């Protein structure tokens, strides 16, 4: 439905988005994961028509919309800061698009009332209609912003970090609600976020963006288990990345069974899931990668232990509390870290997954 083809955008010579191509299908929830400065907001604005690409094209249902001004595109854009109109109440904010759009404005107030009321019910804002935007909470503002866009029945809805400003409880609830709302309307959502859990939880399809490029796209579970690109692996925050000249020495020390020789030869980087590493005392008979214990972080259902390995890199080990008791480790003491060969992911010179 939405097709982005080889789109690039520079800001005074500095590339913000480079040669990006992807497709969003009908009735699909797509998440776009990227750290701040990765170009994800610029990409959204290029699609919405708030910026014009230097190169490439955007298509909607097969028709090119690259040169169409923003207000004629019928692409919904829910802004990060909500951008509610402070001089209008909740109802008028939501009715704004229906009343004032250039294409096919709704003149009949009774139709507007019906549509606005339906949307207000959908997003759970009943009873807030006459409040001014300054009188409602952050979560409600988020809903108004979403309702304001959805009521205009856009073909696709772009959400720029929609949950970024909400507290954790509300974020979790909105995660589920966003999915329900989308399913009910059958409209496609493209949700941009810097949070890997959000991206994994919400998307049927997921894109990872870094330095203006899409580095990987696919189903969230594949992304998490076998990231094809080293940047994806890093952005999952689930892997320890090993690199450098002593890579094979580190692997040989830490792997408890036989390593595959061919992959080892080509590998420049390796990723090992944090929860697949085990810790034993330095005095234990098993061999392992020597590491100095720094500190631990208790997160309720899991605990993360931080180690410093010989080359100065930090290695994190994650234990789920349901699987084992808390370990008693001494700060600045040396321990052995080890893992199994099958849990290692190998990346070559081009930072792509090997084999």
């Amino acid at each position, binding site marked *: 439905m939405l097709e982005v083809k080889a789109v690039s955008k520079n800001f005074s010579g500095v590339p913000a988005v480079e040669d990006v191509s992807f497709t969003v299908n009908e009735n699909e929830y797509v998440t776009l994961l990227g750290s701040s400065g990765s170009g994800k907001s610029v990409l959204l604005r290029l699609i919405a028509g708030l910026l014009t690409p230097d190169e490439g094209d955007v298509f909607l249902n097969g028709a090119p919309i690259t040169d169409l*001004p923003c*207000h004629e595109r019928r692409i919904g854009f829910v802004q990060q*800061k909500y951008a509610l*109109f402070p001089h209008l109440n909740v109802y008028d904010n939501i009715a704004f*698009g229906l009343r004032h759009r*250039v294409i096919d*404005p709704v003149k009949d107030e009774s139709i507007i009332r019906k549509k606005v009321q339906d949307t207000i019910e959908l997003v759970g804002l009943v009873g807030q209609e006459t409040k001014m935007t300054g009188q409602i909470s952050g979560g409600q503002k988020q809903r108004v912003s979403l309702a*304001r*866009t959805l009521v*205009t029945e856009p073909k696709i809805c772009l959400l720029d970090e929609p949950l970024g400003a909400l507290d954790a409880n509300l974020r979790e609830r909105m995660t589920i609600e966003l999915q329900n709302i989308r399913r009910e309307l059958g409209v496609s959502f493209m949700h941009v976020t810097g949070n890997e859990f959000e991206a994994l939880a919400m998307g049927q399809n997921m894109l990872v963006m870094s330095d203006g490029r899409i580095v990987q796209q696919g189903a969230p579970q594949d992304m998490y288990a076998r990231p094809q690109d080293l940047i994806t692996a890093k952005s999952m925050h689930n892997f320890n990345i090993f690199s450098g000249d002593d890579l094979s020495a580190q692997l040989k020390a830490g792997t408890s069974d036989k390593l595959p020789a061919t992959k080892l030869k080509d590998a420049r980087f390796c990723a090992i899931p944090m929860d697949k590493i085990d810790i034993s005392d330095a005095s234990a008979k098993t061999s392992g990668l020597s590491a100095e214990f720094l500190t631990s972080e208790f997160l309720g259902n899991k605990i993360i232990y931080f180690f410093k390995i010989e080359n100065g890199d930090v290695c994190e080990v994650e234990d789920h509390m349901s699987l084992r008791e808390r370990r008693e480790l001494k700060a600045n003491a040396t321990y052995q870290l080890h893992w199994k060969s099958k849990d290692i992911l190998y990346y070559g010179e081009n930072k792509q997954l090997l084999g």
Partner: protein
Amino acid sequence: MRSNKGTWLLLSPGIIWIMLFLVAPLIMMIYVSFWTQTTFSIKPDMTVASWVNFFSSDTYFGALLRTVRIWFTVLVVTILVGYPVALYIGQFIKNKTLQTALLVTCVIPFWTSFLIRVLAWRPMLGKEGAINIVLQKIGIIDAPIEVLLFTELSVIIGMVQIYVVFMVGPIAFMIGRIDGSLIEGARDLGASTWTIFRRIILPLSMPGVIVGAIFVTVMVLGEFATASALSGRKVNLLGNIIITQVGSLKWAFAAVAGVVLTVVMATFVAIMLRIVNLRNQL
């Protein structure tokens, strides 16, 4: 209530100042307007003679109407001229430094004295002034336009030039505060540039227009110098009346004119503040 003493201590200089130099003179002015005025003296015997005289005399009541008419014209023209400038500075200039620089540029005329600014219009507007010479040279007119100087028009031109900056400043400030994301949001919802101006920018800049209107009103209604310098004393505003009455020791009469002027100003400011709740907006 512990801070009561401190609060009063902090407030007292302001209160004393306002009592001595605003409230007391105001009360005095109202009081004096009811005194009995004879040609060379004034007695504190209460009478409404000066009030009756003011409202029944064509000269004085006419001056009131003229004052209101000129004030209203100047107000409308300053909004019409000032708003686009403010819109340009506040919305089209993205660079904050350049915004400030442009606003400072608007204030440059204030670096010279008020009277010089007013008098500088004479060589501009006069029969052999710059405008007439230029228009004649390029052949648009054959004879000089005489209506340009020493008329109501010249007073209006002079006042607009002097006071328009007080309109531009507050409006540019309000427009500059409008978050760009609001405009993007409205555009994404399908609104055209005109609709965005009409439905978003204009209502959000109204507090600026109101503040500007109050500034201009207070200054124009009290004006006398521009009127006498640019009209050759032909256009008499209420301010000019007060000056001449005080000059000829007609205190009661001057007081009546003063009270009337104050009431007109206060009414307008009150209405403006009713329209826009500034406390919510600023």
